[in-house]
Each structure stands twice: as C-alpha cells, then as structure tokens.
C-alpha cells in the first residue's frame, strides 16, 4: 500500500471554537467543488432505490407527472364548467411541472440533513452537499416532464385547432390556440436557470429550518399546496383579484412562473419588472439560504 511519507503532504487542520459566522468561503467552495461527486452519487443512488421496487420502475418519472397534470386539468375544467383550450392546458402543464420541481426541492431539501444521520455524525464534509444533492434529484425528476411538455407542444403546433376554425353551420369557434414555436422560447432557459438558483437557496434554507424546527416537514404538504393555489398555475395571472395581485409581490413564484410560462408557452417577452423580480428572488434566496446554512452547519452535528 502506498503511503505519502513526506510530512509536507499531510494536511494540517486547526479546529477553533465555532462562532456563528462564515468560514473562509474560498476554501469552503473549493472543498464543496472537490466533493461534488458525492452529491451526484447520493442523488443517483436515491433515484435508483426509489424506483427498483415498482413494476413500472423508471417509467414512473413520466407516468406520475402526466397523471398529475391530467387530474388538475380535469379538476380545473370541471370547476370552470367549460372546456379550456390548448393555451390554457399548456400553461397549466408548464406551471405545474415547474412548481413540482420547487415542491420536490422543498420537501427533499428539508429532510436532507436530518436524514443524513450517521454520515453527518461520522464524517467531516461540507454539509451543503446534502441539500444540493436533493436539488439534483429534483432536477432529474423535472427533466422527463419537459419531454411530456414538448410532445404536447408539437401536437398542438401541428394538429391543434386554430383560432379561425369556426364551424360553418353552428358558428361555434374552437377555443383559442396560439401554441406555436417561436424564438422567444429560448428565453425559457434563463427563466428556468433563475428558478434553479432560487431552488438552490431554498433547499439549504429548508434543510436548516428542519434541523432547528422538526415540525417543518409536517407543515410542508399544506404550505406547498397553499403556495400552489396562490401562484399563477391553475389560472392565468390576469384572472387574479386585484387585492390578490397586490399581495403577489410577496410570492417569489409569481414573477418566476410568469416569466417561465410567458416565454415557454405564450412566446411573449415578459416585462422587465417580471425579469427583475425573478432575479431578485433568485439571488436573495441563494444568499440567504446558503449563508444561513453555512454559518450554522458546524453546529448541526450536535443537534441531529
């Protein structure tokens, strides 16, 4: 067995009392980066473990969001008492898939450190890898849903009813269909990048919260459902009550999902205010979430 004999090869560590403060960020980020494979492996292994015991296996990654979307579409259509067109259907799908990504990040992120149990107690490593691994898992679950979305998009673009197709005899027109490919859709990539950065901070924030308040994960199913109803997913933003619209400055997902569905589905350029709002929320979440986590993480070992 080879062994580094020279003394200078041995890293020297000095451990001093912990203050609620940030460690040297350059060192921290370097270690985080050098151990990134851990986060990747953890998320891959978790995905494998989650899908080995079921009959459809990995297909559930496509089946379950599709079923989810079908349920919501029926629900919303029944409530509206009419048939919504392809525009709305696509709006709902895109919004729901992005929202599910955030919801998965929140739920798995909250558990990431507390469920890390023995590893956290036995190994010295940057713990931020745990929520980031949950983020990767959520992203891998999100990717197949974009396949579903694309399939519908192609279908509506080529075969969907067109807005001018009215029945010659009854005069009834099919619901509006403006689903067409457009260059603006490329802006959905930066729009999602903002959601991703927002989710990064959120995963760290939820993990920290869960260490200090074990009720967090119990409250999450309700909190996320309310969040969904308050976000422009099951309806269009312009269908909101005026008083509600005022409150939406407090909802990070309002600008983010607006930018997302505007670019991806409607192919229109979102307003500058929406872009700026999204950037602010993304950056704010990243800074607050990760810095709070990092400044506390050495204490986690004595609290879980």
């Amino acid at each position, binding site marked *: *067995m*080879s*062994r580094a004999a020279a*003394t200078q090869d*041995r*890293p*020297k*560590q*000095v*451990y*001093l*009392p*912990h203050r609620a403060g940030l460690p040297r960020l350059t060192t921290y980020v370097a270690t985080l980066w*050098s*151990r990134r*494979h*851990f986060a990747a*492996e*953890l998320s891959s*292994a*978790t995905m*494998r*473990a989650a899908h080995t015991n079921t009959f459809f296996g990995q297909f559930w990654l496509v089946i379950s969001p599709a079923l989810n979307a079908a349920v919501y579409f029926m629900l919303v259509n029944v409530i509206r008492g009419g048939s919504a067109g392809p525009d709305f259907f696509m709006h709902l799908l895109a919004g729901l898939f992005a929202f599910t990504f955030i919801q998965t990040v929140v739920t798995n992120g909250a558990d990431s450190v507390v*469920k*890390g*149990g*023995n*590893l*956290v*107690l*036995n*190994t*010295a*490593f940057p713990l931020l*890898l745990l929520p980031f691994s949950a983020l990767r898992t959520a992203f891998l679950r999100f990717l197949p849903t974009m396949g579903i979305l694309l399939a519908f998009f192609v279908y509506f673009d080529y075969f969907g009813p067109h807005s001018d197709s009215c029945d010659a005899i009854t005069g009834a027109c099919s619901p509006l269909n403006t689903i067409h490919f457009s260059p603006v859709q490329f802006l959905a990539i930066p729009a999602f990048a903002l959601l991703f950065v927002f989710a990064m901070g959120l995963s760290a924030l939820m993990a920290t919260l869960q260490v*200090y*308040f*074990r*009720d*967090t994960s119990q*409250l999450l199913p309700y909190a996320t459902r309310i969040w969904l109803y308050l976000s422009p997913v099951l309806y269009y933003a312009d269908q909101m009550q005026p008083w509600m619209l005022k409150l939406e400055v407090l909802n990070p997902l309002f600008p983010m999902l607006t930018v997302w569905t505007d670019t991806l589905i409607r192919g229109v350029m979102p307003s500058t205010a929406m872009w700026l709002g999204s950037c602010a929320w993304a950056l704010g979440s990243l800074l607050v979430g990760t810095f709070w986590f990092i400044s506390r993480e*050495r*204490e986690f*070992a*004595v*609290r879980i």
Partner: protein
Amino acid sequence: MSHDEDEMVIPQLADRVISEEIAVSVSDLDVTYRTTLEKRPTLKQAIVRMGRGKRSVRTIEALKDVTFEVPRGTVLGIVGHNGAGKSTLMRTIAGIVPPTRGRVEVTGRTSTLLSLGVGFNRALTGRENIVLGGLAAGLTKEELDERYEQIADFADIGDFIDMPMRSYSSGMGARLAFSVAVHLDPDILLIDEALSTGDAVFKEKAAQRMQELVDNSSTMLLISHALRTIINMSTEVIWLDHGKLMMQGDPEEVVDAYTEFVHVKKTTAAMNDM
C-alpha cells in the same frame, strides 16, 4: 465489567517507531453541547417559549479543559465510563464537532470509524454506501475504484454487498464499516467501539489489518470497552472521567488506575446502599 470477551491481541508492539512529530495536539479543550430541553425541537415549542420569553437550552459539558499530545505512530487507547466524553473527543479531533473553547491541531488525514457505522442510508446497498462514504470523506472516484475490491473482499459479506443495507445483520454492517475505515489509508485512524462486533475469524483478520496500519506508522486513537484490547494494542492510554482528563501514560498503569477507581466507586456505592 468483563475484560475477557471481545479481546483482540496484536502480536508485537515493541519494535514500533514513535516519531517526534506531533499528529494530534489538544489544548485547553472544552466541548459543551447545547441542546433544547425537548428531545425533538419543534416549531410549536419554539413559539410557546417565545411567548413566555425564555429559551430553554440545556448545556452539557462533555469535555472540560482537556490537554494532551499524540506523537505520530502512537496507538492511543481512551478509557472512561459511558458519557465520559470519549466519542465527543474523537468527533472533535475528526473536525465534526467544534470546540467550545481551546484548540485542536491535527496533522494528517483522519478517518473515523465511530460506533454508528458507515451504513448511513439503509435503503441503499452496501456498495453504494461504501462509495458514498468514501466520496464524502474526500476520496476521488479513481481512488475508490482502486480500493473498492479490497474493501469488499475484506468485508467478505458475499452477495449482500449489492443488497440494501436494511437486510444486513448488525455484524455485517460493522464488518463493512471497519473495512471502509481501514482501507481509506488514513494518517490518523479513529476507532470508536467498533472492534467488538464480528466473529472470531473476522476479528483475527481485523487484528492483522490493524497491525499493518500500525506498522505503516499510522497514528491510531482507539476507544474500546474491552480493556484487554486496550492494553494489548495501545502504546499509551488516556482516561477520561466526566469530561476531565484524569491520567495519561503507560497502558497497564492507566487501565489499572481506572479499574481500581471504578471498583472503589462501585463498592462505596454498594455500601451507601446498605
């Protein structure tokens, strides 16, 4: 306390080289745990407390003013009653628990084998746990590929290696944990009560592997309830009592003093009962 079960004999310690160089230096170390009074801290309780305007934090002084040095090549045994602070000391040296006061200097890479084991996620297979433990500890994928076969061979648990760890017996889990820790090629090996598990054949193998590590001039810190093992393996022993360092020195002497202390306390307690 039974001294003879779980014993492990390492054939020869006399000719080992203890260097001048210090591997671990602990000075004026205090470690205080701050736990909330409740077992599981919850939001509800936090809100109730905020309402009453008080914070119920319980402090546990696990280590008090501990100072010692470990030269490279030492096998340092640590003895003390349950709750004396042995595991806390190791976690501090491993950089997992921060000192409350004082300073800990560690030269070299540490590998921990604490009693809780490597199988941190029991839904994952042994193989996945090995890879994940190694990556978290800072090994590269290439290093892990190199060592994976050695680790699996050494643990010798057959096809179980590709099964979820929740299907393992406790012995299998311990074998895997031991195997991982001693194959990480650490400069400083920290072993917390993990030797006592496993059958006679595995113990024999484990003892041999430890000897190899010792021969390679690894520094080793060892916690075991089997005092015979401590005497046989250590070149030096420290004794902790309620977080205080009581004694440091020759293994036989320290263990003798410790057993006498435990014995005296037991008899006085017994007499007080009467």
